[in-house]
């Protein structure tokens, strides 16, 4: 059974190779090949899963060693896989959601002439992401880590003809690079500390390692997680990443890749358990991002960017949970899985809406779409109920557990974290309700928006038909798009309940991550009740603001906070002022030093050499007699030396 593990990666990798190298011959069949191989990977995952279920809880971990990658004395790196319950969860999520999104993309990308390439990239992403989660050592994990970064870059910039997409891809790549530096430094630290990269020895020997080293490694891992999972302070790329095609946003920037940071922290739990300071940093990052993303999500009018803010916020929940230690690991992963379902569903729904609305993304130009897109409305609505934590749906179970775990941290910290999580839940309810109301309810604002303005009567008719001015005709998306949405909606509705009833998920993951119930200062019922209250409050406020009143098609000026939130809470301005300006100043001073000091030394040496050579060159005048003088002079010196030596 171990031998199947490599097959998980091999299938999408083969797909990527075939599609990217196959050329135009595969343009007609390429998407089917890509989808089929993604599906094959999912089937392999399911086979492995059933096999795993058949074994006892303690010997469910599978290992497969392919070959020795870097066989150097004292530096051994293997290409080896480890499939335990944690990896298995991810494998099923990645291949399952991945396959659904492949199917969805067949319809979504139908009119794109580079569809084959798109599927090639998607397959490449699947391969890299699977490598990330089933690697059995940090070095191989790093390969997958960089691989998903590459795939993400390629897919964000898929519509590279749009400057905004190209820039967004570059931004994502660069910001991710900062995080990747953290991971590579963490791996180097691990090597110097433990002498190996493999999970087993590294995580097994944290007990004998000093806390300082563990803290350093933990902080570096946190930096890596921040980069990949768009957490403060490396969060700025995720909003712009929405420039990519919507299936990409759903798969990579909502369900799977951005959760890699959570996986990394949970996987390295032993390190964080030994380093309370690093753990505290994780919690702080999670809590801050949770609010940050939620606030940004409230102000965005771009449906995908609003969802991106929501993603950031939900991953903040996961990071927060992962930072809580054994109390939270399981819930972090559980929320990750349920979030994977409902957020992917929401993004696919958003993509479906855009598909029917001429790729319009401004929610202020939507409205009343429930009549035109019933399937999308229902699936989106179920995703919405799941994310705000409507009782009985997925988000309710997983988020509730995290809030409980936050309170269970104990002491002042526990109260602060719990309150933050509760506040986040309220804001989540607010902004998701806003998205829902703006998109599917209210008046049909797109009719106004599309009316040509009478102020410009002499606009050429050709320009009107060619541009986005033509009135959109909202329509339901094709079957290939709605089916994945329906499947994901099922997941959104039932996954949480399925996992939580009887603590199935807890028992499933406990052998890997461990679990600790903690000691909550308030009872679980109280927390649930509080969550319900804030949920109702959030929905009510949103209803008051957007449901009762007509929504202006052009965004009002808004308060200071709104304007800041529209600018992503000034993250780019902050980066510009601190990093870009600071970098420029640093560079300028370095250039100055380089010009004056370094160049001075170098040029001075060169100039003095040149001058000396110029003087010496006159000795080489080509005249035999000059050379004869030199020889004669040399003879004189030799004789003088001889006589002198004799005299001495």
């Amino acid at each position, binding site marked *: 059974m171990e031998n199947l593990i490599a097959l998980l990666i091999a299938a999408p990798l083969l797909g990527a190779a075939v599609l990217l190298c196959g050329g135009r011959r595969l343009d007609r069949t390429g998407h089917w090949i890509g989808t089929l191989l993604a599906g094959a990977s999912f089937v392999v995952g399911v086979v492995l899963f059933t096999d795993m279920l058949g074994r006892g809880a303690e010997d469910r971990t599978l290992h497969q060693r392919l070959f020795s990658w870097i066989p150097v004395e004292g530096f051994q790196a293997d290409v080896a896989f480890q499939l335990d319950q944690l990896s298995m969860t991810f494998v099923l999520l990645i291949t399952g959601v991945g396959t659904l999104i492949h199917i969805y993309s067949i319809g979504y990308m139908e009119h794109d002439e580079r569809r084959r390439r798109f599927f090639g990239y998607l397959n490449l992403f699947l391969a890299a992401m699977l490598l990330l989660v089933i690697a059995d050592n940090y070095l191989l994990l790093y390969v997958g880590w960089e691989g998903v970064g590459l795939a993400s870059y390629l897919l964000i910039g898929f519509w590279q003809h749009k400057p905004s997409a190209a820039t967004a891809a570059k931004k994502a790549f660069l910001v991710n690079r900062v995080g990747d530096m953290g991971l590579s430094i963490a791996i180097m630290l691990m090597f110097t500390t433990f002498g190996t990269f493999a999970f087993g020895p590294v995580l097994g020997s944290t007990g004998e390692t000093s806390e300082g080293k563990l803290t350093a490694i933990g902080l570096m891992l946190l930096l890596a997680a921040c980069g990949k999972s768009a957490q403060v302070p490396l969060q700025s790329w995720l909003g712009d990443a929405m420039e990519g095609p919507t299936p990409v946003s759903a798969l990579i920037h909502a369900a799977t890749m951005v959760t890699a940071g959570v996986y990394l922290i949970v996987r390295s739990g032993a390190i964080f358990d030994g380093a309370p300071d690093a753990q505290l940093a994780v919690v702080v990052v999670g809590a801050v991002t949770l609010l940050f993303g939620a606030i940004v999500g409230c102000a965005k009018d771009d449906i995908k960017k609003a969802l991106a803010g929501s993603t950031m916020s939900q991953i903040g929940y996961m990071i927060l949970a992962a930072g809580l230690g054994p109390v939270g690991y399981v819930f972090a992963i559980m929320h990750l899985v349920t979030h994977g379902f409902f957020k992917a569903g929401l993004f696919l729904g958003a993509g479906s809406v855009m598909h029917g609305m001429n790729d319009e993304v401004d929610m202020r130009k939507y409205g009343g779409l429930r009549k035109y897109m019933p399937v999308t409305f229902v699936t989106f609505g179920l995703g919405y109920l799941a994310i705000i934590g409507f009782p009985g749906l997925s988000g309710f179970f997983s988020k509730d557990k995290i809030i409980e775990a936050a309170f269970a941290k104990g002491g002042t910290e526990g109260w602060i974290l719990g309150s933050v999580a509760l506040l986040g839940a309220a804001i989540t309810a607010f902004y998701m309700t806003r998205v829902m109301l703006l998109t599917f309810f209210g008046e049909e604002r797109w009719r106004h928006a599309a009316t040509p303005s009478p102020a410009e009567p002499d606009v050429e008719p050709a320009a009107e038909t060619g541009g986005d001015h033509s009135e959109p005709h909202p329509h339901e998306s094709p079957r290939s798009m709605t089916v994945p949405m329906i499947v994901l909606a099922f997941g959104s509705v039932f996954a949480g309940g399925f996992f939580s009833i009887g603590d199935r998920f807890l028992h499933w993951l406990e052998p890997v991550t461990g679990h600790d119930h903690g000691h909550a200062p308030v009872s679980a019922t109280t927390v649930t009740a509080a969550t319900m209250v804030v949920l109702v409050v959030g929905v009510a406020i949103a209803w008051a603001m957007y449901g009762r009143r007509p929504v202006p098609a052009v965004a009002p000026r808004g308060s200071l906070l709104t304007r800041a939130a529209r600018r992503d809470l000034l993250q780019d301005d902050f980066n510009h002022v601190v990093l870009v300006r600071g970098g420029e100043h640093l560079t300028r001073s370095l250039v100055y030093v380089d010009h004056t000091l370094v160049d001075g030394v170098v040029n001075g040496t060169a100039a003095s050499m040149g001058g000396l050579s110029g003087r010496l060159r006159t000795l080489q005048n*080509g*005249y*035999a*007699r000059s050379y*004869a*003088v030199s020889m*004669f002079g040399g003879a004189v010196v030799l004789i003088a030396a001889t006589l002198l030596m004799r005299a001495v």
Partner: protein
Amino acid sequence: MNPVNYLYLAALLFTIGASGVLIRRNAIVVFMCIELMLNACNLAFVAFSRMHGNLDGQIIAFFTMVVAAAEVVVGLAIIVSLFRSRHSASVDDASLMKL
């Protein structure tokens, strides 16, 4: 008379010859100065031969003469061919290290 006088004379002639090599530009005269230096050496050898009372010094002088003869033949041939290509016997004209 002190036999060292012969050596002084040889040293003087050698130095004059060497200076001539450095000063004159006509290749033939330069060559003559070289011959002068060789002759000065020969004088020293002969004087040494007499001082030490054996004939080895004269043998060396004899070989020097033979080698000088061979050298003159080749050297003058070079001067002639150089003159043919450059119409000049000046050593300074051959300053480009190529024809």
